[in-house]
């Protein structure tokens, strides 16, 4: 083992290389690794957060869907009820209307019958008088005639 100045040279070279590594290699590399570690952990956090949010959204979706289904069913039910009611209403209204029209038509008929009867009665009276006048060809007391005619008319 022959020690000589090589020892000092090696020591200086070692110091130089360590200094170089300390200045230009270690810190930037460490920073990159730490940045990546942080990014990965952030990413994992974000992923688990996203998963949780997705789960929440799923349950919320199920809730909303359930409520909507219920509401829709209710609406349909109501609509059906209402439709039935409307049909019933329309039916009864139509029935009423029909009854009314029928009634008024009957009334009309009765009225016109009465009218016709009245007309006929008066005409028959006139005809009877005329006939009687012609038959009798006599002068008859107008007053006695009138009462007679009225009597006949009343009997008609």
């Amino acid at each position, binding site marked *: 083992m022959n020690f*000589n100045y*090589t*020892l000092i040279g090696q020591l200086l*070279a070692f110091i130089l290389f360590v200094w170089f590594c*300390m200045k230009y290699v270690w810190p930037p590399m460490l920073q*990159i690794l730490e940045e990546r570690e942080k990014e990965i952990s952030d990413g994992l956090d974000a992923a688990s957060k996203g998963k949780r949010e997705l789960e929440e959204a799923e349950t919320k979706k199920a809730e909303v869907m359930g409520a909507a289904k219920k509401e829709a069913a209710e609406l349909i039910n109501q609509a059906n009820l209402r439709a039935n009611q409307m049909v019933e209403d329309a039916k009864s209204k139509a029935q009423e209307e029909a009854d009314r029209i029928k009634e008024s038509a009957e009334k009309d008929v009765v009225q016109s019958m009465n009218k016709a009867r009245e007309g006929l009665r008066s005409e028959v009276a006139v005809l009877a008088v005329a006939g009687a006048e012609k038959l009798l060809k006599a002068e008859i007391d107008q007053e006695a005639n009138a009462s007679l005619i009225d009597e006949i008319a009343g009997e008609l």
Partner: protein
Amino acid sequence: MANKELNSTDYIQHHLQNLTFGECSDGEWRFADGHINFGKDHEAHVEQKDYTCDVNEMGFNAVHVDTMAVSIFLGCLVSFFFWSITRKASVKNPSKLQNAFEYAFDFVRGAVNDTFVPKNNNIIGPLALTSISWVLAMNLMDLLPVDLIPWIANGFQASNMYGPVHYFKILPVADINAPAGMALGIAVLIHYYSIKNKGLGGFVAELTLQPLGKWALPFNMIVEIPGFYAKQGALALRLYGNLFAGEMIFILIALLFGSFFESVSGAMWGVLGILLHMGWAIFHILIIALQAYVFMILTVVFLNQAHETHH
């Protein structure tokens, strides 16, 4: 490689010698005799001057050029590689290369976070990453054949022939200076943090007042102080020893290739050498990676101990 006139001992010693640049006996700094054979050094080598330029005479005043060149080249390569990945790194759209680097980065970060208790220390991470990557890169040089670089540098001739680069050890960690230099830096940090976190008194007390209390102070010092420094020394020696031993086996295996083209039996030894080299290399990959990892982990553990205020 092993010529007829070059015996095995010479070959092994040749491969245990670093390419050395140092202070020669005339006080000038020059490559050691015969290490580099071109230019002025070549002439000096050929002319046989009146001074000697022997590695053993240089003592501390020398530099192992091969160790320095290979380790600094690898350190720059690793640093530049990491920097180029980091520069283009993105959070959301990482490239394949970035993914691979992040895996390694996270491995180091995990090891540091598991072992190192104090937070907000911005030196331990880079220190660990640099330690493991640089040591791994240097250790991997062990897998290159021991004669490869001299062979290429000499224009594809064996290095013991007369070539420009006679000596070149490709493996920096098989030179004690490389791991010791790193361990020295870590030892400085251990002292710094110990004194910073425990106070000078606390640091000294830890070495003198345990485990038996103040009345057994000499005993405590004998137990604790060598233990404290042996840890730091062992950090270097463990790496050096493991890789040096591995390199030694490769050198011994390389001896078998010596007369590959010379005779039938030489060729057969060569084939055996190839198989052995492959087997040892496969096994040695484990040691290469393991020692780099151990060096990093122990660095982190020792620095963590320097932060522990209670024992």
